[in-house]
């Protein structure tokens, strides 16, 4: 339960309220991770939050976390300077596991909403750069509220150059935006994935994941081949605190990445309010 001190070696403002922090341990070996897993980040004296790792395993170098400023702890993290020390515990939770079934064969559709692309970044990088002999094509649908809030634009271009089909859409255009406007589900018709042979990885706001999963199933994607990353309040990361319960799941332990088929599809259609 004790965080390991890490130094912020660089920080990059992705959008007005999203910052990527690059971290190296103050001493000792770097922490490992598998894409989809998260760490508990401590802003000393402020508090601790669960943040997914946004590094790619293919990148040599610091551990990256992409943080959106939504509360006191995430604000302190976003405002931290290069050289500052924060605490890191982890990694925790289940990974996207792109090398295993169902993503190991057929096309893969990755659907990201807003900051939801951060936990997917490493998984997409693995998918895009895997040998041609493994799996099919990679389709990336990235949604943002407005063009100014698109994060990882450089990565999206690089993944397109590497052979992925990339579609970016915004809820609300702004002057100069020539791209698509609409929900992530509205671009499914424009990308030529083969539903019956496809898997999907989905991360974003809960309502977006619910509608995306239903739209994919409606097009013929097997619910068993859809993975979603779920989010609840997390205060310990190790299954003690009880805050991250969603029905039968303790999301820090059983999630965040879970198959959509079965319990999750049922839970996402219930209202917890």
């Amino acid at each position, binding site marked *: 339960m004790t965080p390991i001190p890490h130094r912020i070696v660089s920080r990059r403002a992705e959008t007005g309220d999203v910052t990527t922090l690059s971290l190296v341990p103050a001493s000792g070996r770097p922490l490992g991770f598998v894409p989809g897993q998260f760490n508990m980040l401590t802003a000393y004296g402020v508090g601790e939050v669960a943040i997914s790792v946004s590094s790619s395993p293919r990148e040599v170098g610091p551990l990256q976390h992409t943080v959106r400023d939504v509360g006191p702890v995430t604000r302190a993290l976003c405002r931290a300077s290069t050289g500052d020390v924060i605490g890191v515990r982890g990694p925790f939770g289940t990974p996207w596991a792109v090398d295993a079934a169902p993503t190991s064969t057929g096309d893969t559709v990755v659907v990201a909403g807003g900051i939801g692309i951060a936990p997917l970044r490493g998984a997409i990088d693995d998918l895009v750069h895997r040998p041609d002999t493994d799996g099919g094509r990679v389709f990336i649908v990235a949604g943002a509220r407005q063009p100014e809030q698109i994060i990882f634009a450089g990565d999206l271009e690089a993944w397109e150059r590497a052979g992925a089909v990339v579609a970016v859409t915004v809820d609300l255009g702004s002057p100069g935006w020539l791209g698509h406007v609409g929900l992530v589900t509205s671009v499914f018709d424009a990308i030529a994935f083969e539903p019956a042979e496809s898997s999907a990885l989905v991360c974003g706001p809960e309502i977006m994941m619910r509608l995306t999963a239903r739209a994919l199933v409606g097009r013929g994607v097997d619910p068993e081949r859809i993975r979603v990353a779920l989010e609840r*309040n997390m205060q310990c990361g190790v299954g003690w605190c009880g805050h991250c319960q969603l029905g039968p799941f*303790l999301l820090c332990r059983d999630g965040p990445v879970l198959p959509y088929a079965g319990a999750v599809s049922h839970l996402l259609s219930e209202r917890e309010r």
Partner: protein
Amino acid sequence: MRIGEAVVMGSEGLDALLTTLIELGYETRGPVVRDGAIMPGPVREVADLPVGTHDVQAPGRYGLEQSDDDTVFAWAVGPGSWKAEFFPPSQELWHSTVDGESVTTTTPDLDMPPLAIVGARPCELAALAVLDRVLLDGAFPDPRYAARRDGTFLVTAECGSPAATCFCTSMGTGPGADSGFDLALTELNDDDGHRFVVRIGSDRGAEVLAAVPVSEVTAADLAARDRVLSSSGDLIDRRLETRGLADLLARNLEHPRWDEVADRCLACGNCTLVCPTCFCSDVSDTTDLTGDVHRQRTWASCFDLDHSHLHGGPVRSSTSSRYRQWLTHKLSTWWDQFDTSGCVGCGRCIAWCPVGIDLTEEAAAIRETDGAVRSLSTAPGRAR
């Protein structure tokens, strides 16, 4: 003396047992009368125990009465449970001194004397077994819980005086104990005198008992014990039908009963506070005047609005959704998460609910109208 054997101990034997445990280095705890309730507390001699104390409990009601009889264990569980001994209401996880790039972190000393609990009810042994599943048996055992739990000497007092709120017989956790103890006492106070049948549950229990004056158990003693336990079982008329219960609740998440109980529920969290298995906690950081950072872990309740806080607000904003979370967790999803029921039938949540909400009644109401669905217009969050 061996595991499974029974002997008889006179009433003076209980003092000898406590003295033996103290001499062996145990920190001895048991039920005591404190603030008008039976509570866990330090016990060094029989006089510290609730001698002659009896309880009166009903939904939303709890009280003690004192009589001049010399029975020691003639009461049902009070609001305090043994949970607090192993998982304290508030504990420091670590504190750090942050000086530029250097962070020095200190974790609390977990070296504690061994603990002996004398007089835990069988339902409380069951509750500890449930907590063990949660805090000990997972991938990340809780070190504070493990340190306190390690080597705990458990003397259970089988239950001869259940309260009107008890339903251990439905949950298979009482009134007698089958396992999970070092020694099991059954208090007898009849024409043959005041004495205890002592059953040995572990080698350690046998070793401790070797220093206590005991005599051979007679057929009459064993028959008297059977009578105490069977009459205790007969006294318990509250029932929770557990057949298919987990599935029943899982398929009735939109049942109108959740809104009906929410009309009465104050969302005060008393039930989670007195529950011997509720384990939720908040983790929070504070700084002291020297600038040191302290990370604290404190009991939390799923009835608290902030419990489900996610950026933008709580996931469970209605009382209905929070009561549903609590009851479905306790009786249904606990099985998914920990392969056991989260309820041991102690009845504390019924007695200590300020408005007397009874979970057995709520579960029965849902069973009676299995499949009913609340109207869309009245469901929380749906009218907006």
